[in-house]
């Protein structure tokens, strides 16, 4: 089986009856099937490229940001921090370049 490393995850690519099966290596070393019965009609080298492209589509690299959750209070002792309240009139959006930290 060929291996493919992408986004800190190892994938194994095997071939059965002319079709590819892609496995994802889990943290405990076991395997999960990403897809099976793939790319029968393409050459060996193309199949590898197709496998990599499919893995990149199924497991995209990205950052998922959530928040600020203005409804979620954080208590530190007696202090209740609820913010930032982006709807408050004193909340300032700073969208200018800083001279100290140019973009």
């Amino acid at each position, binding site marked *: 089986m060929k291996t493919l490393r992408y986004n800190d995850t190892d994938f194994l690519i095997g071939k059965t009856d002319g079709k590819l099966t892609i496995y*994802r290596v889990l943290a405990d070393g076991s395997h999960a099937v*990403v897809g*099976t019965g*793939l790319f029968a009609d393409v050459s060996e080298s193309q199949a590898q490229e197709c496998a990599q492209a*499919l893995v990149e*589509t199924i497991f995209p690299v990205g950052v998922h940001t959530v928040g600020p959750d203005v409804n979620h209070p954080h208590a530190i002792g007696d202090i209740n921090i609820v913010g930032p309240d982006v709807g408050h009139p004193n909340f300032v959006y700073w969208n200018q370049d800083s001279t100290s930290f140019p973009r």
Partner: protein
Amino acid sequence: MEIKDSVFLVTGGGSGIGEAVAKFFAEKGGKVAIVDRQQHDIDRVVGEIMTAGGEAIGIAADVTSEADTTRYILATVAAFGKLNVAVAAAGIIRDSTMLSLDKASGKVSRKLTLEKWQAVIDDDLTGTFLTLRDAAEAMVNGGWEGLLVPISSVNKIGQIGQLNYSSAKAAVALMPKIIVGEFLMRGINNIRCVGIAPGYTATPMLTGMNQEALKDILADVHIGRLIEPRELAQMIGHCVENGALNGTTIEITGGLCNAHGIAK
């Protein structure tokens, strides 16, 4: 359309009705893309399909996200070269009556929250819309024969405690008529749309419920049992193969008889 060698996309394919549909089509020689929120459910179902000799891929995604919808359509076409059938089976429930009263005072003590309302509308209605829309786009642009299958529910008639769910499923039940009418208007003649409205089905949600309550439900079902998920899959299989089925939502309930057309 033949099931064998057709490509199927099944949202909610990691459990319940979606899992049964995915496995049914894989068993019949279809190639299946399974979409679900839960990676461990996807891994299990794709693994079981492979063990049974079928062909499948799994994509973890949120059906309410436009970006995710694009991603799973792209992945399906990248893996199997086309897309023929999209089954929008992903759905959730968040049951509550709109108002609850305090027994002593008779005043309102609790309301159906916006969170519960919105979550169901997002998943069951918007998620279905996004899947069908983008699947149809791929089918039209690819020139592939296709079938769109929104999953409604018999509770589209109005289920007490499910204002959110019944509203979403009533809207979903209308989709085939509107979509097919628009396809006719636009000259899209090779893509059909048939909705399925299941009755009470033997998913873990129902089989795990209070058995007395389940007995009450079954008292209204003519065949005296829950519908098996595989029976729904067989109905969808029939819709794939029978090209005359189009522009309608088909109920499969085992003969559910509700007094006054309103569920309990």
